[in-house]
């Protein structure tokens, strides 16, 4: 059934373009069927999953590689499915109103649905490699969605940036997951977590896996791509960049943390990065003028918050994290939808050009107030419940110095969160006299149709409902947290815990947040004046540019198209590797005699002189003649040795090559090229000399290496008695190796055939071209 649900996503996505041609915007209703069915199934399976009987399916894919399509729906997966598919249904409803009629809606709906299916795959996967496959599919679909307005150069750049950052992180994660899988002996996620591997390899694997989680969830220092991703249409931001995809990293960390949090460095790293992200995101959000960017940095901040809770592997914090996941999904998606409505109705989302919208679209205003208040952590809303649980978890202590750091970070982060939540509502809806005076009084903006607002309103209602009656969600949260970490004890969720430390902390946060919001101008000025720290986005651009430039240089240097350079590289490698090996046992010394007679010695001397002449000659013709001299000298050696047949062959071959050379030389300049670049000349000489040394040593060594008697002795001994021939060469050709000769004749026949073909082709080219 799980597989069928994934299949339904794929099928509907494939059909979407065709559907949109017929139904126009109705395509979104068709697409919504898939996530709706998923929610229904998840709810139906939820009781069993809560009781610890998760639904699971396995389909063989590439089993020998550890790749099998294993899916599992446990209680935590139910929570994630509700987020992914539940919000998905709402987003599709929202899309139908957000977009005007345009021709590429079908493509958009298809990609969005493909994304929803991929994300569903991520949370259902019970095999780390399958998880990775779906993980990268979300990256690719997200890339297509960010770059949907592909006429805009900025959208394309942002899409590519998001893709490169998350795909790179994903590959690092893959390496980590494979190391973990090898260490654990299984790639099944549930089995790996039930019996987690330990030791150095497991630590390395777990930390590498964090690379993927951090990039995907936009943690410092990878947070910049999420801001860029706001180039996407607003429904995409609401869905991918707040409610689902960016939570994939948090999801993975949440799964792994209970098993690996105690490995060296994990907890410190995750909490440290989480705190840094929460603070940086909140701080940056306070200076944004674009409402969408404000929310994007808010999301970065909240993702850090979730990382602190779900990544530490502390049971109570895990439970608080589950609450926050749900709460954030509800309020942040609602806020993004509100931004989309504002943008749609008022034509801008720059808070310096918006004024008076609160009066003109009161329903939207109230939805925004509820969602933002939940984000700020005000009672009696869901966000408040989540924050209380979070403070509560870390107030107990017991995890060393990390606890206070996490607590302090969360408190400070919450102050910032309160301030930017207030800034959001103020920026979008307040009456701003100076803005109104400048002519941007929002007079053209009127309230959106009820159906456009409905999805956001529904999420706001959920926020209030669970805030007032948190026990609604308690069952889900308890079961989900227990599915992550069996050590989690079921607890109740409550709005009112009495006057405890957590409540005082919340009060403090609210007071500080109000103060911060009141001094918003000073904060903005301060941020403008502070020297901007090394920006990760700049680092990314520097890296991409550096790669391009570096590659350019390297190419120019090593790949200049020059044949001598190519050849020199190969030859130098030969000299560098085998020559030392050959010389390792000392220079091989020839045993036996060097020359058997004075005549031999003289001929050898002549050959040597001719060889040196070849190298020194300036004219091509002279070089060829010297080369011929070498060959003829060798032929004389054969004669001296008593092998006239061989000498004859050598003479023929030598003469023939000389003739060919002369024929070719007619088309070449008379002299060799003279190189004016001294260093190049010296380099060539050095290479040539070294190769000469190599060949010399090689011949010496090869001559020494004989281990068995040469075959020639046997032939000499057998030629007369067995074949009745005195000429050994002839005997070999026609008798001992008769079949070889037969083969050679066959080869000659084939060659003749080829030559005949060439001749014919020549004739054809002159005129009578045949048809193909």
């Amino acid at each position, binding site marked *: 059934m799980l597989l069928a649900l994934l299949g339904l996503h794929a099928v509907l996505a494939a059909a979407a373009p065709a559907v949109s041609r017929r139904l126009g915007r109705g395509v979104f209703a068709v697409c919504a069927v898939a996530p709706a069915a998923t929610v229904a199934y998840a709810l139906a399976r939820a009781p069993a999953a809560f009781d610890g009987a998760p639904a699971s399916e396995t389909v063989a894919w590439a089993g020998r590689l550890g*790749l099998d399509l294993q899916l599992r729906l446990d209680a935590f997966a139910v929570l994630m499915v509700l987020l992914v598919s539940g919000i998905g249904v709402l987003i599709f409803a929202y899309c139908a109103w957000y977009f005007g009629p345009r021709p590429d809606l079908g493509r958009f709906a298809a990609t969005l649905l493909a994304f929803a299916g991929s994300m569903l795959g991520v949370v259902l996967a019970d095999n780390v490699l399958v998880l990775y496959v779906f993980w990268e599919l979300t990256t690719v679909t997200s890339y297509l969605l960010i770059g949907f307005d592909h006429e805009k150069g900025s959208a394309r750049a942002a899409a590519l940036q998001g893709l490169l950052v998350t795909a790179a992180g994903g590959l690092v994660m893959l390496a980590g997951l494979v190391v973990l899988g090898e260490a654990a002996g299984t790639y099944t996620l549930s089995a790996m977590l039930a019996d987690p591997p330990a030791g150095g390899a497991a630590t390395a694997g777990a930390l590498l896996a964090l690379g993927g989680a951090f990039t995907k969830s936009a943690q410092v220092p990878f947070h910049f791509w999420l801001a860029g991703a706001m180039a996407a249409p607003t429904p995409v931001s609401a869905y991918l960049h707040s409610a689902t995809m960016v939570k994939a990293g948090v999801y993975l960390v949440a799964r792994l943390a209970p098993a690996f949090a105690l490995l060296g460095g994990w907890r410190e790293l995750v909490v440290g990065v989480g705190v840094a992200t929460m603070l940086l995101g909140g701080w940056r959000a306070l200076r944004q003028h674009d409402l969408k960017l404000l929310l994007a940095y808010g999301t970065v901040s909240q993702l850090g918050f979730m990382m602190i809770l779900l990544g530490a592997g502390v049971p109570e914090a895990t439970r608080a994290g589950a609450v926050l996941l749900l709460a954030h999904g509800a309020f942040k998606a609602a806020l993004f939808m509100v931004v989309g409505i504002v943008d749609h109705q008022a034509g801008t989302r720059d808070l310096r050009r918006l004024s008076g919208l609160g009066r003109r679209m009161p329903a939207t205003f109230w939805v925004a107030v509820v969602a933002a208040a939940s984000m700020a952590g005000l009672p009696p809303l869901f966000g408040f419940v989540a924050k209380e649980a979070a403070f509560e978890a870390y107030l107990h202590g017991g995890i060393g110095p990390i606890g206070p750091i996490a607590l302090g970070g969360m408190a400070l982060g919450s102050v910032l969160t309160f301030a930017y939540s207030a800034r959001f509502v103020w920026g979008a809806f307040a009456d701003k006299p100076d803005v109104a005076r400048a002519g941007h009084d929002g007079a053209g903006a009127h309230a959106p149709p009820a159906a456009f607002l409905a999805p956001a309103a529904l999420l706001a209602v959920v926020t209030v409902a669970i805030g007032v009656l948190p026990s609604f969600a308690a069952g889900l949260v308890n079961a989900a947290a227990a599915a992550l970490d069996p050590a989690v004890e079921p607890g109740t969720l409550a709005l009112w815990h009495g006057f405890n430390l957590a409540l005082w902390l919340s009060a403090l946060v609210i007071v500080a947040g109000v103060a911060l919001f009141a001094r918003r101008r000073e904060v903005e000025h301060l941020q403008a004046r502070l020297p901007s720290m090394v920006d990760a986005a700049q680092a990314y651009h520097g890296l991409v540019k550096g790669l391009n430039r570096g590659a350019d240089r390297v190419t120019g240097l090593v790949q200049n198209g020059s044949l001598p350079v190519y050849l020199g590289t190969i030859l130098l490698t030969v000299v560098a590797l085998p020559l030392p090996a050959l010389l390792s046992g000392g220079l091989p010394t020839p045993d036996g005699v060097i020359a058997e007679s004075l005549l031999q010695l003289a001929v050898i001397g002549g050959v040597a002189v001719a060889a040196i002449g070849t190298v020194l000659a300036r004219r091509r013709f002279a070089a060829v003649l010297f080369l011929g001299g070498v060959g003829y000298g060798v032929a004389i050696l054969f004669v001296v040795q008593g092998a006239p047949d061989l000498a004859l062959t050598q003479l023929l071959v030598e003469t023939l090559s000389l003739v060919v050379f002369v024929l070719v030389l007619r088309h070449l300049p008379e002299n060799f090229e003279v190189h004016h670049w001294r260093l190049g000349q010296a380099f060539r000489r050095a290479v040539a000399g070294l190769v000469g040394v190599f060949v010399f040593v090689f011949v010496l060594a*090869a001559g*020494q290496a004989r281990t068995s008697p040469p075959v020639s002795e046997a032939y000499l001994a057998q030629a007369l008695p067995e074949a009745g021939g005195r000429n050994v060469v002839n005997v070999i050709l026609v008798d001992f190796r008769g079949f070889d000769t037969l083969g050679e004749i066959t080869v000659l026949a084939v060659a003749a*055939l080829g030559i005949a*073909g060439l001749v014919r082709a020549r004739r054809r080219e002159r005129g009578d071209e045949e048809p193909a």
Partner: protein
Amino acid sequence: MTLLAQIPPLQIPDIAWSAISPELVLFGVGILALLLDTAGPQRLQASFLVFGFAAAGAGYIALSTEQSVLPGLVGLAALGQFALTAIWRDRPRLLSALLAALGFAGAIGVTTWQWGAYSGRLVGADAATFVGTDSLLGGMVAVDGVALFTRVTVCLAGLVTVPLSFAYAEERRIHRGEYYPLLLFAATGMTLLASSADFIMVFIAIEVLSLSLYILAGFAKRDLNSQEAALKYFLLGAFSSALLLYGIALVYGVTGSTNIAEAGRAFSSLDAPQGMAVAAMALLIVGFGFKTAIVPFHMWTPDVYQGAPTPITGFMAAATKAAAFAAFLRVFVGAFAPLQWSWTPVLWVLAALTMLAGAILAVVQNDVKRMLGYSAVAHAGYVLIGFVAVNRAGVSGVLVYLLIYTFMSLGSFGVLALLERRNHKAMAIDDLRGLGRRDPVPAGMLALFLLSLAGIPGTAGFVAKFAVFRAGIEAGHAALVVIAVVSSVIAAFFYIRVIVAMFMEDVPEGVAAEAPLAPSTGMSAGIAFSAAVMVAFGTVLPFLLVDLADQAATFVS
């Protein structure tokens, strides 16, 4: 009478022709195609002559050995070629192409038969006819999993190259009679290389395939780029062959044998000077490194790939690599495994260099064909990971990788050939802008191949990459896999740049509207087949391929 009685009865050695039956098929069809082309207008007569000889031979075999299957097949083939010649006697190129395609298909069929016997599914007399599993042809040829798998890879590559070439060669006016015979001869050399069990055979096979490829690379003889490609390939290839021969000589010197397995055994029990053994291996690495395009012996690759006719480039990139890696594997992972302490560090470094250099150099290329040439270098580096793993998972990973790479490479070069046909020029990335909107199907296919080359999950390329990465990690080469990951990230950048240009950028203003693409049937079929194989064995049913490769990951010893 007395004289005759004195002559002892002729001892015809029992030659296991069946061991090289795929090569015989390829070579025979190549000769036939050459003969029919040479015969010109008399080709029908020539074909009938061939039919007559073949039928007589088949009849003789049937009578003398009382076998029916083999002679039957030979007779059928002879009749088939005559029928084809009779039908298309006025269209010699088409006839050649058809024969070549049938030759590749026939070789795949014979190899499948061999596979049946090898894997034990086919037993009895028929099995023995086609496969012997131990010493064959005097220990010259091995019929083992690696050989059989690679033969199929090479023949599939040929089978796709034929239809890709037809219209392309016609358009560029380079459609000459030798084209298909040369393709078949090159494939003969490749399959022979993959099954060589002796260094002498390795050398002969390399020469057979190289000589054919030198000519094919320069087939567009009026194109300066093509000439340059052929010349560079030839000169550098000649040097590397010589170095390989040096290495073989040293191996023989140290071990007293040119048989690969025997040399390996002699190496492992060596107590004499190690220096010469190391030098021998280094020279062999140079020779194989050149054929497989490993850094620093890769420099010819981009120049040659760019200059050669595009379908030939695809064939070279895919099939040569598969064959050379098979022989490389047989020598080092198969025979020299006991000496791995000495050569794995070298190949480890070369693998890292190859992956990084290939990816980095590809980034700045604007010519798509050249970019794919560099990317081929990077892919050789990924294959090397499975190589240095020196285990069964590594060998099967290499086999899977090479088969999948074959289709990725042929497919992408095939689409390029299609585009070049229309534009009558090499394709730069800028020329691809807006292609996705004008010609969505070819653009989509190219995108599929490129995503697969990038190793995006869900594509065949991912399965391939994962297979070798996993083998590497299993063997403890985690650092190398990390380098591979870095290289993949860089590589993803330039593959995706092409996709962005096709789908997200518009045709620049002022560029005249191009003529609509008119893909020939053959090209469409070749590209579609590649895509279908990739989706089938990469995305939907990878376990079939992975299991097969795992069965194949054995060497005869």
